[in-house]
């Protein structure tokens, strides 16, 4: 009762002073309002990002914990380190004892073997592909098919001639071009083509070795791959989803391509440019005009006409030319190809007004006619990797499907990973399996004693066996030799099937551990490390955040920046508050003295000043908090667009829709007010030191 009245007395006096020094009040309230605003918005976003990131990282690759060798030279980064390249993670020679030790812990649900490494994907070109097709039709003896393929070949050769004459306009090295042109003229010769159609090996090889390289080999691309036990992996990583084809069958060697990689690196160039522009225009809402990046893409697009033309036979070309004419893009007449080239160039010249229509037209009328992706499920690709001893090793793997991580579809980081079976992984890593040892044995008997000795000598030197036919000491194979590499690799090194038991034990580089209760993560981490080390296992245990490399650290950086910004605001606010109280004391010496003289304790004066700060702070903090809620509610509707890949990863999608967390909204302004109030205790105590005798002062 008394307290309430005393408080109301303090508040009345406080309010009067706040009104009296309005400007000061507004400045302080604004500062603290900013603090409150920033903390509500910042903490909300941080919390949302952390939650979505945690879900993404745990649910895609990392699991809750990761174990790997203590001898690793690099820290494990499941999404790759910030410097692209292979990590040295050491090796877990046999996973079985690790699994046993982990599963003894009642909190551990599963242990999923993994191995992350990087390899090269060998790629041919369109002419290689059609020559392959031609050879197979020659073998089959189907004359209709052969005619079709020959028509295709002639068409491609004509295109190449057109392309070459275009190149002549810009290229300096005329001699080489003219040589290529002469070769092409020869290839287009009627008699030569008849030789090809009759299966003349010399003519075919001329095409393969002299003509095919003219159309240019694509750069081999680097592929990150994760070798794992697919059954265990699918069970424990809910973010994984197959978007095309099928998942890896248990006990079969194979690869699941990342959808992101396929879209970004293995898709037809024209389609890829359309996709990129669409994404920037629609998701990021950046108009084509005026944006340098968009302009670069727009200018690149017309040059891709050849990428469309290459896949068309004469009938398809005629049909496309017709459709384009019907939609208002007319050719110049005369030659079909020259006309279509003109039409395609016009078609691929896009701006803001026609882009959407062109995009739709492309996917409706052009995409079905061309090979949209270089690699599709069902095909077998050749993965190459350097083993630890420096040998280039090639392993054929069948592409079963295309996958992506739920919510991380657009992230380059999460999409960098392709999934292979553990057996293929070990093969690429350079481990000798029973099958390859047997293979080696057979080879030795075939090749003879002398070679075996040489092979043994190398084995002894480098401590790691590598089959002789794969031992290519040169670095990346030169582009034109891709077909040569493939002929060398036709013999399968290892069977396509394997026993499930083979991957339950044996080599892995790391392993994900899934636990039952995430709140016990640190506890389990320490327990596992202790248990495994007690059993003499070489191990390092890290949590998902540590395992996610710089992506995981990114949230910590954002948090630090936020804390720093809040810290600066608070320090400025607190200095101003304290200063204003101390200055204010001078103006109010007589009033304070009077109160002290007539019996107010020092604590009353302190309370009065704290009430003033408290009210100001609460006022600012509530307004700041309310503005923050308004902003967040708006962002919740429109979303925050991700402008960078790392951000996409943090957002777990192209846009983040922040949620309103009542605890943050309520607690932040209260906390801000409390800190401000508590921090002004010093100045308030200073004010309380005014002597009661000051009441007698006459100067006013």
């Amino acid at each position, binding site marked *: 009762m008394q307290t309430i009245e005393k408080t109301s007395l303090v508040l009345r006096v406080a309010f*009067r002073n706040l009104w009296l020094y309005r400007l000061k009040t507004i400045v302080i309230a604004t500062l603290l309002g900013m603090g409150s605003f920033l903390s509500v918005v910042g903490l909300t976003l941080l919390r949302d990002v952390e939650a979505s990131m945690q879900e993404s990282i745990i649910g895609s690759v990392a699991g809750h914990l990761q174990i790997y060798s203590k001898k690793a030279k690099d820290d494990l980064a499941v999404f790759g380190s910030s410097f692209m390249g292979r990590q040295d993670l050491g090796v877990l020679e046999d996973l079985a004892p690790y699994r046993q030790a982990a599963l003894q812990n009642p909190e551990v649900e599963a242990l999923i073997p993994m191995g992350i490494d990087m390899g090269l994907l060998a790629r041919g070109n369109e002419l290689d592909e059609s020559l392959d097709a031609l050879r197979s039709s020659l073998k089959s003896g189907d004359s209709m098919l052969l005619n079709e393929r020959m028509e295709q070949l002639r068409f491609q050769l004509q295109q190449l001639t057109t392309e070459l004459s275009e190149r002549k306009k810009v290229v300096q090295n005329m001699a080489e071009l003219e040589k290529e042109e002469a070769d092409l003229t020869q290839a287009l010769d009627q008699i030569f083509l008849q030789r090809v159609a009759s299966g003349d090996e010399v003519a075919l090889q001329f095409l393969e070795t002299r003509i095919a390289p003219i159309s240019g080999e694509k750069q081999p691309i680097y592929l990150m791959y994760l070798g794992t036990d697919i059954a265990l992996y699918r069970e424990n990583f809910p973010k994984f989803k197959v978007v095309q084809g099928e998942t890896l069958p248990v006990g079969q060697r194979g690869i699941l391509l990342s959808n992101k990689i396929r879209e970004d690196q293995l898709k037809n160039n024209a389609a890829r440019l359309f996709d990129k522009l669409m994404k920037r225009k629609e998701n990021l809402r950046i108009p084509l005009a005026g944006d340098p990046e968009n302009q670069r893409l727009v200018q690149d697009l017309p040059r891709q006409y050849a990428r469309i033309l290459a896949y068309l036979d004469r009938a398809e070309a005629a049909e496309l030319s017709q459709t384009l004419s019907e939609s208002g893009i007319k050719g110049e007449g005369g030659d079909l190809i020259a006309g279509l080239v003109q039409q395609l160039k016009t078609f691929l010249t896009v701006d803001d007004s026609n882009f959407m229509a062109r995009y739709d037209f492309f996917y409706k009328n052009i995409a079905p006619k061309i090979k949209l992706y270089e690699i599709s499920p069902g095909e077998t690709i050749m993965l190459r990797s350097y083993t630890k001893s420096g040998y280039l090793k090639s392993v054929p793997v069948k592409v079963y499907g295309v996958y992506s991580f739920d919510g991380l579809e657009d992230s380059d980081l999460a999409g960098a990973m392709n999934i292979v079976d553990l057996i293929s992984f070990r093969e690429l890593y350079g481990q000798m399996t029973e099958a390859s040892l047997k293979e080696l044995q057979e080879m030795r008997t075939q090749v003879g004693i002398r070679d075996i000795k040489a092979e043994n000598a190398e084995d002894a030197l480098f401590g790691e066996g590598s089959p002789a036919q794969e031992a290519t000491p040169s670095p990346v194979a030169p582009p034109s030799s891709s077909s040569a590499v493939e002929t060398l690799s036709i013999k399968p090194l290892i069977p396509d099937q394997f026993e499930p038991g083979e991957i339950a034990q044996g080599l892995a580089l790391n392993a994900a551990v899934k636990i039952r209760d995430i709140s016990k993560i640190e506890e389990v981490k320490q327990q596992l490390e202790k248990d495994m080390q007690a059993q003499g296992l070489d191990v390092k245990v890290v949590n998902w955040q540590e395992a996610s490399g710089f992506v995981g650290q990114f949230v910590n950086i954002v948090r630090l920046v936020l804390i720093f910004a809040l810290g600066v605001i608070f320090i400025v606010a607190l200095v101003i508050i304290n200063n204003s109280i101390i200055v204010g004391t001078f103006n109010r010496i007589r009033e304070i003295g009077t109160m002290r003289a007539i019996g107010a304790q020092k604590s009353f004066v302190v309370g009065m000043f704290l009430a003033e700060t408290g009210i100001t702070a609460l006022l600012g903090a509530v307004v700041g908090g309310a503005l923050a809620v308004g902003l967040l509610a708006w962002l919740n509707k429109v979303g925050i667009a991700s402008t960078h890949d790392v951000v996409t990863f943090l957002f777990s999608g192209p846009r983040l829709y922040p949620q309103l967390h009542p605890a943050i909204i309520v607690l932040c302004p209260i906390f801000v007010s409390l800190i401000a109030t508590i921090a002004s205790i010093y100045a308030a105590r200073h004010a309380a030191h005014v002597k009661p005798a000051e009441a007698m002062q006459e100067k006013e």
Partner: protein
Amino acid sequence: MSVAVDIANVSKVYPLGKTSVQALRDIRLAIAEGEFTTIAGPSGCGKSTLLNLIGCMDTPTTGEVLVEGRSTSRLSDRELTRLRLDKLGFIFQSFNLIPVLTVYQNIEFPLLIQGKLSRQERHERIVGLMDEVGLRDQAQQKSNELSGGQRQRVAIARALVTSPRIVLADEPTANLDSATGERIIDLMKNINRSHKTTFIFSTHDPQVMKQATRIVRLKDGLVLAD
């Protein structure tokens, strides 16, 4: 008659730069309960210092001040504050009201700090005092809306509201015209009679001095006449 304030051999020295100022020299003074005493003298004679010492707002360099027989020299700041609140009333030359508060709230202020009385008890006491000082109709007015004389009446009511045994007034009429000042002194004197409250006030106005039952004249920190 018992002694309200006993000043025993009190000296007060203020440091002033490297030298010091002897404000009071060996003062011996006893003020009996119910007296209406004025402390007179030219400015700088030590009037304020003496009032501060009696009002427990300052401590003597040597000697002792006893309020109602109780020594104040060993009391803490908290105890001195409590003593001021319970035993002493203060009236200031510039009235020193709290501007934001109404007349009623200004008078209530010490009672609220004291925290002894219920709302009803406070109300009765405040209304009674407002009647007595002639401010019955101004209860809800803000103190900065009042005239000088009215403000000093509020100050008197505030000084009396805790029923102190001693009221100290520092030049209570200095900021008022002589007619108003006279009425204020009359009011104080009436209260002195009716409440038996000891009044000690400083002044240099001869008209005011005439009203006092006792005049202590100070000069250069010494009691010149009594």
